[in-house]
């Protein structure tokens, strides 16, 4: 599980930073994590590792933004996000006439929205590296805003979406990356 999450984190860093820098950071974390497993045990070493990841995100994001490479990725990501939101709105409108006015009505909307996010993020990543991550960040931000401020969707939808939405966008990016690696 830890190894799987390590690989996932590497992918995120590779999207944010130049490949050699991301490589060095992931390698440094792996090296120090291995040292700490010997001195403090695997559980505490894993806590240290994830603490480092969480605390590193701020400085890494600031560095990525300063580099300027992120502006096009954000623009592409925002266009892709707008497409997915349009699909969600269309799905909601389509469901409305046959709605049973129960929490179940939101299930097809969630599935369509998640599917649209996977597709949009995949295409966005193809257009610009890092765009899928931008989509995931925008989705996460808007999902948290909806969770706090309320809205037309049921509570379960607003609770689930902050996890499903960004995961769908990241899955879209990963799908494109996987296909690119296979083609290479």
């Amino acid at each position, binding site marked *: 599980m830890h190894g799987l999450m390590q690989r996932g984190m590497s992918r995120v860093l590779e999207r944010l930073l130049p490949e050699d820098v991301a490589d060095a*950071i992931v*390698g440094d*974390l792996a*090296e120090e994590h291995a040292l700490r497993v010997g001195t403090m045990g695997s559980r505490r070493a894993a806590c240290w590792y994830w603490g480092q990841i969480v605390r590193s995100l701020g400085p*890494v994001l600031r*560095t990525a933004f300063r580099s300027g490479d992120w502006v096009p990725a954000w623009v592409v990501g925002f266009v892709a996000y707008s497409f997915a939101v349009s699909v969600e709105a269309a799905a909601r409108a389509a469901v409305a006439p046959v709605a049973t006015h129960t929490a179940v009505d939101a299930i097809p909307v969630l599935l369509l929205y998640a599917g649209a996010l996977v597709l949009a993020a995949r295409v966005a990543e193809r257009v610009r590296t890092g765009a899928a991550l931008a989509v995931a960040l925008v989705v996460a931000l808007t999902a948290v805003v909806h969770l706090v401020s309320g809205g037309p969707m049921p509570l379960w939808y607003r609770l689930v979406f902050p996890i499903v939405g960004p995961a769908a966008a990241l899955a879209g990016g990963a799908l494109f990356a996987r296909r690119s690696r296979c083609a290479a």
Partner: protein
Amino acid sequence: MTTRSDFLGSLEQIVLLALVRLGEDAYGVTVRMEIEKRTGRNLSIGAIYATLARLEAKGYVSSQTGEPTAERGGRAKRHFRVEAAGLRALRASQRAIENMSAGLRKRWEST
């Protein structure tokens, strides 16, 4: 005359001093550990690399990629070294602190 951009932030000074101490062996892990050992500050690796990126952009530090190793999951190290401009900026910053704090020891020790 020292310009505003010549002044280093405190973290930049600490990272540069760590690079000077470590010499050839300066890379992410050793820099982070050296700072933790000498200052007690448990910095994140992201903060170290963000500072190094700033210093590299200013021409104070240069870096080169090493060979990938097994204990790093096949990832390469990134070695850093301080350039002459970095040493000059470090000396200027240290001098500025010394000048500003000269004669003040009694004052802050009495409070």
